[in-house]
């Protein structure tokens, strides 16, 4: 009797630990390095869920609204697949946002290990927290979209009330399964990569992988939006699907949204798809994912307990050092420039937050590329010719990159450590910003335009590709100068007040400005490509502009000011006396 009571007590104690841990892990998922929800967490989460619900409701309305008056003779599977794709993309994106919090890390193991906790309690609580997180966003996605499925589709199959309720249950089951698949796909990928690469290598490449997946996911989401705006017909047609059955069948082997669409249709009892049998992939996929998740999480936790850090070998350091010395002696002759250049490089290399923020900006640029291509050139069938769209792509990419760099520079890293810059401050402010410009140019713009040159050499000829890349680089340098024109902040060292750009008010102007910039510069380049001699005048113009900006900075900015470490807040009310900003005036 006593042993039963003890066992019950132990079980209830473990259940309590499980609940506490699940709550802890769940809340930690909202405090990631990209989106900090710590402040007003509930309001923000509700806001995001509401946005997701409204948007997914809108997507469902766009695709399924017609079934209010059009008979569904089986064609609705395509719309279902499109909506499922959208849900899976969003869930995948949510998983990438949580990248570093997916599995238990060293902080977890060092904090939880000393406590009387079983490993199974920790692991199951972590799994439950991820499941809860995925369910929450799954709910957001399904909230307003599901009524369109449930109310518009079943009557075309059967008038029975029983079928109506069965359809609703199947709908929720399949949609949540698809959401879990989309979310746990990246979770499992994370675990597999961590186990295959080993924790040391994985730690080093993790941020690069995460950036890559952010870019990929945003790219896919924007392609999706493009389909939403321009329709599906010029990308995929139902007639083509029927005629090219072998090609599409092969494609669907690797397209999970189709698996779940087939599962949906199969569960309803009378699958009406051109291809059938893929539902097994969905079930098998879910099972494999669950198994791999448990396996990799267990392995990862074991490793995080044993993990130790190892330093670089002396030989590697010597090679790295001699390369760096050669680089510095050629390109960074001033010691302040050197300090800023390497501080900038190392911060962007090490800080996950900054890297991810930059990747998000760049991803938006990358994701715009298929938009641009499919907007005009595909229809005209001149994808590879020299046209305004292809010419504008490097400008879009470099602009997104520069905007991202400008944005991340404002966000401090270890703000409390900036005393070292204050203490070592020197009057030659120009050297600080020359170092910064060199870092942006040599570490970001040059590699981008070398890559662009390689790609366009394949598309066009080397000479045109060279003109094109050089033009893009010159324009980007000018944009960089304009973006840094009033900057007195050493990157990553100044306090940060978010919302100063007031995007919510000015987004339309920013967008119009961006469109104007892309249009004007790409058309100018097209004109210059027709008569390449004009490039000389253009480069001379850029040079004059850059020298002008630099002269302005030296005379009106750097000589009259000191480096800035505190971000100045926007005044609450703008007074008429422009000489004294209101927040500085004393009453």
């Amino acid at each position: 009797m006593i042993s039963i009571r003890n066992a019950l007590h132990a079980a209830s104690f473990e259940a309590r630990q499980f609940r506490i841990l699940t709550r802890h892990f769940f809340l930690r998922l909202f405090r990631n390095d990209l989106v900090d929800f710590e402040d007003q967490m509930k309001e923000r989460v509700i806001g995001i869920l509401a946005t997701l619900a409204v948007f997914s409701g809108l997507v469902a309305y766009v695709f399924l609204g017609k079934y209010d008056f059009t008979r569904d003779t089986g064609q609705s599977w395509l719309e279902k697949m499109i909506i499922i794709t959208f849900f899976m993309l969003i869930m995948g994106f949510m998983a990438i946002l949580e990248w570093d919090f997916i599995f238990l890390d060293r902080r977890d193991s060092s904090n939880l290990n000393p406590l009387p906790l079983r490993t199974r309690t920790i692991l199951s609580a972590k799994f439950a927290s991820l499941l809860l997180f995925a369910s929450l966003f799954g709910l957001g996605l399904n909230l307003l979209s599901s009524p369109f499925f449930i109310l518009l589709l079943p009557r075309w199959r059967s008038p029975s009330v029983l079928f109506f309720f069965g359809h609703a249950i199947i709908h929720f089951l399949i949609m949540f399964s698809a959401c879990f698949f989309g979310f746990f796909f990246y979770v499992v990928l994370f675990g597999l990569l961590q186990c295959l690469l080993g924790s040391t290598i994985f730690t080093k490449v993790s941020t690069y992988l995460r950036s890559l997946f952010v870019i990929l996911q945003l790219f896919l989401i924007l392609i999706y939006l493009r389909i939403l705006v321009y329709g599906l017909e010029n990308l995929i047609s139902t007639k083509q699907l029927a005629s090219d059955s072998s090609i599409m069948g092969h494609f669907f082997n690797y397209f999970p949204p189709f698996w779940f669409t087939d599962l949906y249709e199969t569960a309803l009892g009378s699958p009406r798809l051109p291809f059938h049998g893929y539902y097994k992939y969905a079930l098998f996929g879910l099972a494999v994912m669950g198994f791999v998740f448990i396996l990799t999480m267990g392995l990862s936790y074991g490793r995080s307990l044993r993990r130790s850090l190892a330093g670089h070998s002396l030989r590697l350091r010597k090679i790295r050092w001699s390369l760096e010395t050669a680089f510095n002696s050629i390109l960074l002759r001033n010691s302040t420039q050197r300090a800023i250049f390497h501080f900038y490089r190392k911060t962007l290399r090490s800080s996950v937050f900054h890297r991810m923020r930059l990747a998000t900006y760049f991803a938006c640029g990358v994701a715009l590329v298929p938009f641009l291509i499919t907007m005009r050139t595909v229809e005209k069938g001149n994808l590879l010719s020299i046209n305004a769209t292809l010419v504008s792509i490097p400008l879009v990419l470099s602009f997104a990159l520069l905007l991202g760099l400008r944005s991340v520079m404002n966000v401090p890293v270890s703000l409390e450590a900036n005393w070292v810059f204050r203490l070592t401050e020197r009057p030659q402010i120009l050297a600080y910003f020359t170092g910064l410009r060199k870092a942006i140019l040599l570490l970001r713009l040059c590699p981008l335009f070398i890559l662009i040159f390689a790609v366009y050499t394949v598309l066009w000829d080397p000479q045109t590709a060279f003109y094109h890349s050089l033009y893009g680089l010159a324009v980007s340098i000018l944009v960089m100068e304009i973006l840094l024109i009033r900057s007195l902040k050493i990157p990553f060292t100044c306090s940060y007040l978010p919302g100063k750009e007031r995007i919510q008010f000015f987004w339309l102007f920013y967008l119009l400005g961006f469109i104007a910039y892309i249009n004007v510069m790409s058309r100018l380049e097209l004109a210059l490509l027709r008569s390449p001699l004009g490039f000389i005048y253009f480069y001379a113009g850029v040079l004059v502009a850059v020298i002008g900006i630099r002269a302005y900075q030296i005379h009106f900015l750097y000589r009259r000011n000191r480096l800035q470490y505190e971000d100045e807040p926007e005044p609450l009310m703008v007074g008429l006396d422009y000489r004294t900003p209101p927040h500085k005036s004393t009453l």
Partner: protein
Amino acid sequence: MLELRGVTKKYSAIPAVRDVSFVLKPGEITGYLGPNGAGKSTTIKMMAGLLEPTEGEILYQGHPIRQNMFAYKSTVGYVPEQSDVYKHMSAWDYLFMVGRLRGLSDLLLQTKVTELMQLLGLSSEMDMAMASYSKGMVQKVLLASALLHDPRVILMDEPLSGLDVTTALVVKDLLALLAQEGKIIIYSSHVLEVVEKVCSRVIIIDKGIIAADDSVENLSHLMNLPSLEEIFSRLVVSENPEITARGIAEAIKRGS
């Protein structure tokens, strides 16, 4: 000579340091003592040029430091109270950055940093991000960064915090050597034994006001007390430590 003349620092009208005046001479190690919140770190930060006094003046070689802050800062080596460093960087990268910002050449830095890292026992960890360092290791990096450019004024705020016994002994001997070279050194600490051994002069600050400023011997003689600990207790400590300790012990036991 570094002189503080009637220096006051207020944070939102609340004074942290009030009318502090003293002179630091070359070759002298001055201990700066006081309880938590007495204003030690604020004074040191003002001397480093990181904070501006609300009132009063700080003079170096007879000139107000604010007249040429850049030149003054280039003569200062500062070890902060908190181990605030860029932890995403390695010790090697951090020291190179500080050295470069101070205008040292890479060649000189390479020799200096390698040597300092070896002497401080950090050579095997110098390529690791400082996020993985212990408090003592970060403190060693801060000491190295403060002394890298051979400063004439050395301001140390709790420099031995987290350091192991061997390194602490090294630092104490180093301070004596640097003082012999004619450097101006101020050493702020809670550890009275170290101050007693290392410093030729002691300034005690309490609630932002200087409570005493003399050599340990003179203070001992004047107050008729045998050790610095007792002088400090008499001047600064207002509560009975024994009663507080007993209260804490009872609070721990409550409910168990």
